[in-house]
């Protein structure tokens, strides 16, 4: 019924004593997520939202048998928190933090190549398996359990597209916000592979945006390996070349790759219809089911 997370997932929240960490840990628990511990150096022994806090992720994961971690740690310390998660017993880390220096993420990226732990994010809304678990900041109430997998580089755009689906009664297996930063853990290809391998996912929505070439690579991957029908959306068609729009992912280089058009063309070539509006995306998905 899902990929990566479900109601068995035992979650540590890093930074649970901070404002955001505390609030969203509460929201996650309210949604039904199995939050089993917090991890904050120096705050071990405390309790927040009814869960015990440990000084290190290692202790939290060991004592509470956790297998996933969500990082709500300020940007200056976030890379270290991710490294800590990668070097602990958890096998999934979800980094919500926005504004982590890119060079820090390059080092994290190197470390990711050495470990089996998966990273989602950073600068992402997280991951949700409707009705089972949400790890991150996604508004749970717009999701509904179902058979569509969703992967997106953009947070609020995800919500928009999900709401277009949910309003038609089309539910989701799992939705993954992979984040809009230049260097991220799980990318489109990784997420597509997960959904392709999930027997309960009957269709996939992929929301990209201008900048980088991840969507182009995803198109190639879809062409080669993905049988599950995919519908796409690309934000930034009207973005002028060379302008920076919001996050670093959204820089259009002048060289013809990374533009909305090159992404749309690549997806179309791979047989993926790309909607002009979120409603059109929902139309495509509806036609697949």
């Amino acid at each position, binding site marked *: 019924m899902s990929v990566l997370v479900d109601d068995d997932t035992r979650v540590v929240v890093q930074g649970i004593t901070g404002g955001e960490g505390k609030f969203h840990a509460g929201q996650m628990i309210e949604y039904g997520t199995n939050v089993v511990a917090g991890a904050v150096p120096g705050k071990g022994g405390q309790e927040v939202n009814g869960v015990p806090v440990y000084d290190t992720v290692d202790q939290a994961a060991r004592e509470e048998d956790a297998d996933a971690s969500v990082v709500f740690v300020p940007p200056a310390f976030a890379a270290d928190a991710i490294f800590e998660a990668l070097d602990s017993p958890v096998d999934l880390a979800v980094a919500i933090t*926005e504004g982590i220096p890119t060079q820090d993420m*390059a080092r994290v990226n*190197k470390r990711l190549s050495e470990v089996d732990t998966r990273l989602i994010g950073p600068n992402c809304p997280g991951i949700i398996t409707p009705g089972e678990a949400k790890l991150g900041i996604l508004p749970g109430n*717009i999701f509904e359990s179902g058979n569509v997998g969703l992967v997106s580089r953009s947070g*609020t755009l995800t919500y928009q597209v999900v709401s277009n689906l949910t309003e038609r009664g089309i539910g989701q297996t799992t939705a993954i916000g992979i984040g809009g930063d230049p260097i991220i853990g799980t990318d489109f290809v990784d997420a597509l592979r997960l959904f392709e391998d999930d027997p309960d996912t009957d269709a996939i929505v992929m929301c990209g945006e201008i900048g980088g070439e991840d969507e182009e690579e995803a198109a190639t991957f879809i062409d080669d390996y993905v049988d599950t029908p995919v519908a796409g959306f690309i934000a930034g068609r009207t973005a002028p070349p060379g302008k920076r729009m919001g996050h670093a992912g959204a820089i259009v280089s002048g060289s013809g790759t990374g533009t909305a058009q090159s992404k749309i063309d690549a997806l179309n070539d791979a047989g993926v219809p790309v909607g002009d509006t979120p409603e059109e995306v929902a139309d495509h998905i509806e036609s697949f089911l």
Partner: protein
Amino acid sequence: MKLHEYQAKQVFADAGIPTPPSTLADNVDDAVAAAEEIGYPVAIKAQVQVGGRGKAGGIKLVDDADEAREAADAILGMDLKGIHVDRVLVEGAVDFVNELYVGVTMDRGEGKPVAMVSTRGGVNIEEVAEEDPDAIVREHIDPSFGMHPYQARRAVYEAGVERDVANDVASVLQTLYTLWDDRDGADAEINPLMVTSDREVVAADAVMNIDEDALFRQPELAEMEEDAAGGDDLEAKADEYGFDYVRLDGNVGIIGNGAGLVMTTLDLVDHYGGKPANFLDIGGGAKAERVTNALDMVFSDENVDSVVFNIFGGITRGDEVARGINEALEGFDEIPKPVVVRLAGTNWEEGMEILNEDLVTVEKTLEDAVQRAVANAEEVDQ
């Protein structure tokens, strides 16, 4: 954050990269005095952050005091692609025989730094990159180790740099990487890196972009920031407010939360026949004040005829947004531009209860909101 040439050059010189002697001047007399001090020929270079400075007349090579005065007078005060020039760098001209290119940046596709060397430096490096990408040698760096000396050498020899200056060029590249790494560079480039007639290597230009997200740990560079900004007034204001903002040439003002959703809103404005006046992302978790500031920004843009405010709450709460909109609009006797609001996600119902519907038009879906805003703009325009 992009440093000015004179700032980047100082940073490079402090790290030991050879640069020509230079002095910053903000008036003609000082510029001439600097030129005299340095000795002719000198280059007089506009310190503005626009591409193609040279071709646009922002760089002049002069051979005596009269020419220096004439050039400084012409450049100081000129408008270069809309930017006012109020400072020039007076710099000793380099007697060069070759122009190389060296640079360091993040290769986002690979997720690792990359160092670059080319023997085809100079003004046309972008064309070279386009037409003959192999003329630029790329050496990827493992950021956990940093750049090994052999990597700098390999890139330089692979690029075909002449052997008698190869060591010096490798050393410049190594220093450039270290700078890029230590100073949280986004890009660091020297173009051209000149080889002089007596076989020395000199950085004749200097580009350094800093990762904005890392400025918290680069206090010295962060201080340069204000100086380095400049440009469009509204974009400066957006900097002040801390918004991601880009000014465009349409008339439908757009405010939203999250880059992807805001871009989508722009795309839909276009899709429904309107023209976006801007991109404005208030970010995640915005409080009422931030919303007020955003409206203030968009109202300040005289090209804007109509506004669409599109929020899908995750960490952003609909009630906070509604409160901010009310506060921004209740101050006006007459609402300056018609505002269409669409609230969804976290606390959207609370937001709808709070929102003063006398001041704005409310739409339930993104599509409807955009269409209404486009229609409003057309109405005003007539």
